[in-house]
C-alpha cells in the first residue's frame, strides 16, 4: 500500500526525520490561508503516483497567487487520479539535493540502502545516466544496519547522513515497508538535513500488524479484494476470470496473441465456490467496455462443478446476453459440462481454444 506524501511525512516526523513545516488542505481557501501563514510556500498535489511535478501538480506560491494556484491544482487529475488534497509547505530552497532510500533487493533477499548525490531526479534515471553516482549498501535483516556501513555511505556522499539513515531504517523495519524513500533529501542553509519529499510503500501482507487505514472505496478493485479476489482493470474489451495469478496472466497474453485486448486481470484464487464466481462475473461485467468473457479454471481445490453452478445462476439472475466462453478442467469437470449444457455458454477445451473463441466473439459486430 502506497502512503500519501503527507502521511509519509507524519511518519518521518514520528521517527525524528525533519520535514518542512506544513499542513494539509482540501479547499483553495484553507490552502491560501496556510500559505499566507508560512510566507514562501509550495503547494503539492496529494496523489498516489509519480510525475506530479511534470504534470504541474507542484508549484511555489506567493501570497498573491496562492488561492488561484490551489484552485488550479485541486481541479487537476494526474495520471487519472483526481487531486482532492493539497500539502502546503514552507519552501526550503536547499543548497544541495541528495537521494536516500531503502528498498528490498529481491535477488539478494535483503533490504538495500541506496544513496546518491543526484537527488531530486528519478533514481532509475540517475542510475542509467550516471551509474557511478549510486551507492548501494545491503543490510542484514537479522543484524540491522551497521555504523561502518553508514560511515562509508556518508564519506562517499560527502555529507553525513548517519542520523537520517538509521532513523529511516528503523522506520522501514518497524513499519514493514517495501520502500522508504527521501527524494530529495535537502541540505539547507544551516547545514541540517530536511526530507523535502517522502515516498513510503507498506507491504500489503503486513497490514494485519500495521495500523494503516486502507483507502475506502467502491472501486471494482476494492470490491474484489473484499471477496478475496484480485482484480486489475485494463483498457481492452474481453473480461477474464481465472483461478491463479499465473494462469490469469497466461490467459491475458493468449488473448493478446490472438489479436484481442483483455479488459481486466482477475484471479479468483483456490477453492472458489459458486457464489465467488457469480461475484467475479458481476465485477467483471460491471465494466461497460466488456463485450465477451473468458472463464478459465484449472480445477483442483477449486471444483469445476461449483464454478459451473455459479455461472449458470448468474446468467439466470442477470439475464445477460454477453457471450461467455468457459474452459473448465480437473475436479468435477464432467458434472460441470452437464450443468452448462443448456445455459448458452460456449465450451472450450484448452486455454488456447478459449482465448481464440473469446477473441472471435468480441470482434463480432
Amino acid at each position: 500500500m502506497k502512503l500519501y506524501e503527507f502521511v509519509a511525512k507524519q511518519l518521518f516526523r514520528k521517527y525524528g526525520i525533519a520535514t518542512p513545516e506544513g499542513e494539509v488542505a482540501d479547499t483553495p481557501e484553507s490552502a491560501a490561508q496556510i500559505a499566507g501563514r508560512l510566507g514562501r510556500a509550495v503547494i503539492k498535489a496529494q496523489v498516489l503516483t509519480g510525475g506530479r511535478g511534470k504534470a504541474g501538480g507542484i508549484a511555489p506560491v506567493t501570497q498573491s497567487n496562492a488561492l488561484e494556484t490551489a484552485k488550479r491544482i485541486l481541479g487537476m487529475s494526474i495520471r487519472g487520479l483526481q487531486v482532492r488534497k493539497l500539502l502546503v509547505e514552507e519552501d526550503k530552497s536547499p543548497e544541495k539535493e541528495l537521494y536516500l532510500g531503502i528498498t528490498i533487493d529481491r535477488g539478494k533477499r535483503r533490504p538495500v540502502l541506496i544513496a546518491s548525490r543526484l537527488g531530486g531526479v528519478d533514481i532509475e534515471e540517475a542510475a542509467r545516466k550516471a551509474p557511478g553516482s549510486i551507492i548501494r549498501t545491503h543490510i542484514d535483516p537479522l543484524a540491522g544496519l551497521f555504523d561502518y556501513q553508514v560511515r562509508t555511505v556518508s564519506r562517499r556522499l560527502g555529507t553525513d547522513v548517519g542520523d537520517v539513515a538509521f532513523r529511516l531504517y528503523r522506520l522501514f523495519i518497524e513499519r514493514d515497508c517495501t520502500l522508504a524513500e527521501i527524494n530529495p533529501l535537502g541540505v539547507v542553509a544551516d547545514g541540517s538535513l530536511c526530507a523535502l519529499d517522502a515516498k513510503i510503500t507498506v507491504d500489503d501482507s503486513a497490514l494485519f500488524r500495521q495500523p494503516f487505514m486502507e483507502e475506502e472505496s467502491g472501486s471494482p478493485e476494492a470490491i474484489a479484494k473484499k471477496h478475496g479476489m484480485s482484480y486489475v482493470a485494463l483498457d481492452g474489451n474481453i473480461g477474464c476470470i481465472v483461478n491463479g495469478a499465473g494462469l490469469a496472466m497466461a490467459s491475458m497474453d493468449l488473448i493478446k496473441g490472438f489479436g484481442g485486448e483483455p479488459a481486466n486481470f482477475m484471479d479468483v484464487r483456490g477453492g472458489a465456490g459458486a457464489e465467488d464466481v457469480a461475484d467475479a462475473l458481476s465485477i467483471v461485467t460491471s465494466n461497460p467496455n466488456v463485450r465477451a468473457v473468458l472463464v478459465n479454471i484449472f480445477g483442483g481445490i477449486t471444483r469445476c462443478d461449483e464454478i459451473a453452478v455459479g455461472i449458470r445462476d448468474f446468467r439466470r439472475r442477470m439475464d445477460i446476453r454477453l457471450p461467455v466462453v468457459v474452459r473448465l478442467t480437473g475436479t468435477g469437470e464432467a458434472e460441470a459440462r452437464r450443468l452448462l449444457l443448456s445455459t448458452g455458454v460456449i465450451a472450450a477445451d484448452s486455454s488456447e481454444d478459449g482465448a481464440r473463441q473469446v477473441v472471435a466473439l468480441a470482434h463480432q459486430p
Partner: protein
Amino acid sequence: MAQGRWWLLLISRDTRVIVQGMTGKAGSFQARQMLEFGTNIVAGVSPGRGGEEVHGVPVFDSVEEGVAETGADASVIFVPARSAADALFEADDAGIGLVVCITEGVPVKDTMRVCRYFEGRARLIGPNCPGITVPGECKIGIMPNGIHLPGRVGVVSRSGTLTYELVELLTRNGIGQSTSIGIGGDPVPGMSFLDALSLFEKDEKTDAVLLVGEIGGTSEEDAAGFIHKMSKPVIAYVVGITAPPEKTMGHAGAIISGRSGTAQDKIYALEKGGAMIASGPGDVVEKVKRTLAKN
C-alpha cells in the same frame, strides 16, 4: 535427508515429512491428499494439540518432539501468515533439512529474516508456493494428484495453477517429469530459479528443464546467465506480457516496478542465455517434445 535417494531432487519415497499446521482445515485436507499420493507423512505439529491423531498420523506440540519421535527430515507448512515465520524458525532449529512453506501472505520482512537464518542450514521452498513433486515418489505441497507422470523433464515455476496446467499437458502428451517445483509467487522466495536450475543440472534423472516465469523482480534474469553453462536444454515460458506497470497481478511478487521486471526483459535475457522461448501452453509442449527428440 533420507540417505541414498535424495540426490534425485531433494525428496524421494523415503523422505519423512512433518506437516506443520496439520489440524487446520487446509493442513488436514492437504495431508490426506499427500498421503493418497504416497508421501511418507510421519508426523503433524500443532501447538497444544499434541497426542491427537489426524488421518492416523500422530500430532506433536513441537517440531522438535516430532523429529525426535519420528526422524522426520522435511516439513511442509500450512500455518497462518502471521505465525509462518515462527514455524519456519522452529523447523530449522529442529534440524529439518527441507522446508516447504505453502502459506500465502507472509510479510516480506519475515521471509527475508527466515532466508538469512536458513543460510547454510535448511533449504526453503516458498512461501506462497505449491511445493515440490517427484512423480511416483513423493509430493510435498498442494499440487493436485493425478496430473504427474514419471519422466525426464524438470519443471520449475513461480505459479500454481499455470504449473498444474502445463504439467497436465505434458502428461497428456506422454511427456513425464523428473521433478516439478513451484518456487512461489512472493517477492522474496527461498529457492530461486537459479537454485533450481543448478539442482536440475546435477540431477541424473533430468534431461531438460521447463522454466515458467512471470513479471516482477529479476529471478529469471539472474538465472539466465547460468543456462549457457548447463549441459541440459532449457525451455522457458514467461507470462505477463499484457500486465500494466505498478499493479500487483495477484501474486505479491508479480509487479512491474518502474522499468524493471517486465516480461519482455525476462524473455530477452532468457533467450540470450540460451533458453528456447515458448509462446503459450501448446507451444511449451511442442518445444519440449522437439527438445527431447533431439537428445
